[in-house]
């Protein structure tokens, strides 16, 4: 099912910062219908979620999550911590255990004391926390390989940006269903840098 729209999402942890990146293609099987599709959404200033898989489920899930987060903000008068948000997403996905959303989320955020947190889940909510990088989407197999080779612990924001961009672009080059550039967010404690990358337009 993930082969229907195509997607590639990767998140990496650096020194007191994290980066999350996605490709920009939206296709219907082999035909490309958009080259500026947004897969990474902001939940609050320090929490981003990327949704790989079926685009319609990604959008529905995003709307449900924003709804739940806004309710949380109203009740608790503060933003959700990334770990709590990950549990929320996991519970929402597991509720549909026997008729799941065809969607794989990648969650990245800065928690207490700006400690970076990343995690991914399969489509029924099995959380997978990692200390280095997480990947999702049709290009996930090549992304695993590229990240495994290119990742170094404790990178600064600039180096992290280079590494994640190179990993993303080289992996989507080997996948027909994702590509057409990249969209990278690098988040540190003081700023969010959003960059759009030029890649092979095929």
């Amino acid at each position: 099912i993930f082969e229907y729209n195509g997607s590639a999402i990767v998140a990496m942890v650096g020194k007191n910062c994290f980066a999350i990146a996605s490709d920009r293609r939206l296709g219907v099987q082999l035909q490309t219908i958009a080259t500026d599709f947004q897969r990474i959404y902001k939940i609050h200033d320090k929490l981003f979620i990327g949704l790989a898989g079926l685009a319609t489920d990604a959008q529905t899930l995003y709307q449900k999550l924003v709804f739940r987060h806004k309710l949380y903000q109203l009740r608790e008068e503060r933003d959700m911590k990334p770990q709590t948000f990950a549990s929320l997403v996991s519970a929402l996905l597991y509720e549909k255990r026997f008729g799941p959303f065809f969607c794989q989320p990648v969650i990245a955020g800065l928690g207490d004391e700006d400690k970076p947190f990343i995690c991914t889940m399969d489509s029924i909510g099995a959380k997978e926390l990692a200390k280095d990088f997480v990947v999702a989407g049709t290009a996930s197999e090549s992304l695993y390989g590229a990240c495994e080779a290119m990742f170094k612990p404790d990178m600064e924001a600039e180096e992290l940006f280079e590494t994640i961009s190179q990993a993303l672009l080289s992996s989507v080059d080997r996948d027909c269903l994702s590509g057409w550039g990249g969209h990278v967010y690098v988040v540190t404690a003081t700023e969010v840098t959003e960059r759009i990358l030029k890649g092979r337009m095929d």
Partner: protein
Amino acid sequence: MSKAAVDVPLKGGFSFDLCRRNDMLSKKGVQPPSFLKTGTTIVGLIFQDGVILGADTRATEGPIVADKNCEKIHYMAPNIYCCGAGTAADTEAVTDMVSSQLQLHRYHTGRESRVVTALTLLKSHLFSYQGYVQAALVLGGVDVTGPHLHTIYPHGSTDTLPFATMGSGSLAAMAVFESKYREGLTRDEGVKLVTEAICSGIFNDLGSGSNVDVCVITKGQTEYLRNHQLPNPRTYINEKGYGFSKKTEVLLTKITPLKEMVEVIEGDAMEE
């Protein structure tokens, strides 16, 4: 809010509203997603003072290793731990759910939880879903009645055993147990035997790998030895790492400075 708005948290349990749509999609040739499984070798044994549980740490998604260091020994109660094999989401959800039910039960009764309580809660949940919740568990703990070790199969049947193994690597681990287990092991011998059994699963079974986690439960004390043994260190480390001299081409950059969060401190009400 319109009637068709998203429902606020349901009362619990599963919701089946996407089933019809998913059926329609699979008839059109769109396959359902694959789930994260925990291929796995999980073991438990009873030694002279209590119970030792062991697990490997690999999580697979089809043939790919999704997580090289995941936690398969789940907390149920301070004196009860549970290892899970099968679909990762199912084992996590079921153990979390029973763990909170046990906590509530502890508040009600004011006593330490018993292993058979956890066992009954787990087996009745799994049986009511007739095996569709694919969680194969090894439950172990020490309570007032002594040390206990049980295995629970996805359809809800249970076994009470002095040593047990589950998962794809269970045959490799069981071979080690059958040849070396005896009654009245000491703690160190027990830990060594459990580690050997998990290692045999790691090296001989493709669905298990990475590191060994061990949990030793005795009366009044539990020790969770996360990554007790790391038999698979990474051997191909490149000292310099990757350096990228040629920069990525950036089309557009947008920098958003994050505002400082202003703390609102409740002041005294202004006196009029």
